[in-house]
């Protein structure tokens, strides 16, 4: 793990990856806190433990590139650049939210940062990512689309339809499976006949890689390769990033289906502090620099939460708006 100093990107990229991971981690800690203390009632799927993956992917993307993510997706959104204030106001259901409070935590959309879709339906990010990539291919705009999804989504038909079509049409899309070993409460092995999700890429004649999704350098390099391939018009790639979710399926579930020892081992091996220690040990950063960065991020999150909680609710007339392109009569 992270002994591949020779393969590491430039210092500013390494630090940017840390910043994205720190944002996701501290944001998640705040989300769980405001739910637990009763300040905000929301359905929440914690991505804690998985933040390396979108951090390493996103530093390889431009602002114009697209992502499609899923209900467990705040780490993906923040890594792509969804602003904290819009994210939090949306999670709070407020008029100032990214989607005017009409989508909520499972449906954050922010086209300015390229976050085009957050879906609550397992397996649905991939067919829609193909559509974004198809538009890019026809327009020749050079954009790449990343579809994030979980390991269980590789068992739904839409995964196979989407990968097949993307390969047939050589779409500029990268499929990033965040394999956290569980689909809802069911272990990977109990639900998936394939030894790895990456193996499934062979059926569609595309490269498939299983990597340690908690290793920022390994994750960075595989994402770079796949994104460059897509941008060059050579077609899609399937990446299976192995990881672990620390706080169950939906936040608040009792984890009774998890082996406590396995969970403890995963949390003891938390990729965030490991990466932080590595950055300092290798001389890419200093404790003071990272402390400063974390403190700034925490302050920004706190400000976003405070203003979200104080923001106005949407007007009831919003029920008639955005159903269609023109407002429905009262």
């Amino acid at each position, binding site marked *: 793990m992270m002994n591949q100093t020779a393969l590491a990107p430039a210092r500013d990229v390494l630090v940017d990856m840390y910043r994205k991971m720190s944002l996701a981690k501290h944001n998640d800690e705040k989300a769980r806190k405001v739910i637990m203390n009763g300040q905000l009632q929301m359905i929440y799927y914690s991505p804690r433990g998985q933040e390396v993956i979108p951090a390493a992917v996103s530093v390889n993307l431009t602002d114009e590139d697209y992502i499609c993510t899923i209900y467990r997706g705040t780490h993906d959104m923040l890594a792509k650049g969804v602003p904290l204030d819009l994210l939090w106001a949306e999670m709070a259901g407020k008029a100032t939210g*990214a989607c005017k409070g009409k*989508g909520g935590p499972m449906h954050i959309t922010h086209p300015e940062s390229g976050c085009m879709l957050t879906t609550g339906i397992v397996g649905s990010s991939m*067919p829609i990512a193909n559509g974004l990539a198809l538009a890019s291919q026809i327009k020749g705009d050079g954009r790449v*689309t990343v579809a994030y999804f979980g390991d269980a989504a590789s068992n739904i038909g839409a995964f196979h339809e989407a990968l097949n079509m993307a390969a047939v049409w050589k779409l500029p899309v990268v499929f990033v499976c965040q394999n956290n070993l569980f689909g809802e409460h069911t272990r990977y092995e109990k639900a998936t006949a394939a030894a790895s999700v990456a193996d499934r890429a062979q059926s569609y004649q595309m490269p498939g890689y299983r990597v340690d999704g908690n290793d920022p350098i390994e994750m960075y390099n595989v994402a770079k390769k796949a994104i460059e391939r897509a941008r060059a018009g050579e077609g899609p790639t399937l990446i299976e990033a192995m990881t672990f979710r620390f706080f169950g399926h939906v936040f608040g579930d009792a984890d009774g289906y998890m082996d406590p020892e396995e969970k403890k081992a995963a949390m003891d091996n938390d990729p965030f502090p490991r990466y932080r220690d590595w950055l300092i040990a290798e001389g890419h950063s200093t404790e003071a620099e990272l402390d400063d960065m974390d403190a700034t991020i925490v302050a920004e999150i706190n400000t976003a939460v405070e203003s979200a909680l104080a923001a106005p609710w949407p007007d009831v007339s919003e029920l008639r708006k955005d159903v*269609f*392109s023109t407002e429905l009569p009262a």
Partner: protein
Amino acid sequence: MSQPKKVTPLETINAALHQAMEADSSVILFGEDVADPEEGGVNGASRGLSTKFGDSRVRSTPISEQAIIGAAVGSAMVGMRPIAEIMLMNFTTVAMDMIINHAAKLRFMSGGQTAMPLTIRVTTGAGFSTAGQHSDYLEAWFAHTPGLKVVTYSNAADAAGLLLSSIFDDDPVIFIENLPGYWVKGDAPVMPIEPIPLGKAAIVREGSDVTVVTYGPQVAVAMNAAEKLSKDGIDVEVLDLRTIVPWDRDAVLSSVAKTGRAVVTHEAVKAFGVGAEISSVIHEELFSQLKAPVQRVGAPSSTVPYSKPLEMAFIPSVEKVEAAIRKALA
């Protein structure tokens, strides 16, 4: 003056597709077998398009309805106007997640940030012995989902004008074509085709005694019934809705206010159908002016049968519509 040229809906639909693709390079078309090497669609509706507009904008797809609608949804979000052909209306069942959870809802859930200007062309209808899985009229399912428009036509000229409006509408449209009616000749539209506005019904026969509200292939059935009844001195007004969502309440209510009696007929199963909604609104708005309860005609609560006598008994006949009109007049 010479007789107007007679053409089929297949020909006018093909002409409308050509005109739309010529007018706007963001219009793209894909579906099973739609490109010319695959014969321009199993019925030839898209014949000539891939030759004229190229393999990038016109594509035959795998038999993957989820991937087809996913590609339409994603590309519609970023500036394309996709026309997705789902060969038969029953095959939308395979893509319902993409249509209902995504196409219909993404504009609302994103707070109006993502547009959804896509058209899903489907064909269906009993009468060709295509039996239980190739003949259903499922418009009530789509009409019951906020965010979708539902359009159908009763003749060749309307098919072209309504399809053109559907393609250039900024909302997702389910455009229903009638399979047995594909080869029924009618007056040719004036070229270039004029779009027919969505949401506006047409009075196809003026009358003073009773209003028949209908759409699609039942318009011809209602016209035949009206001609028969005229011999008995019964003056029937026939209203072709043209658009099921949004339906033209004003036209329906003003016609029924004039006649005081109404019949609603459609080929879809009567129970829980579109006719129930229209009948209810007429009762709610015009109860005191009605001279009799509104009558509904539709298919029985049966699977579309194969055997010819059963199939003929399934489709609402001229005799059934005539009987319903007589009942409304009783």
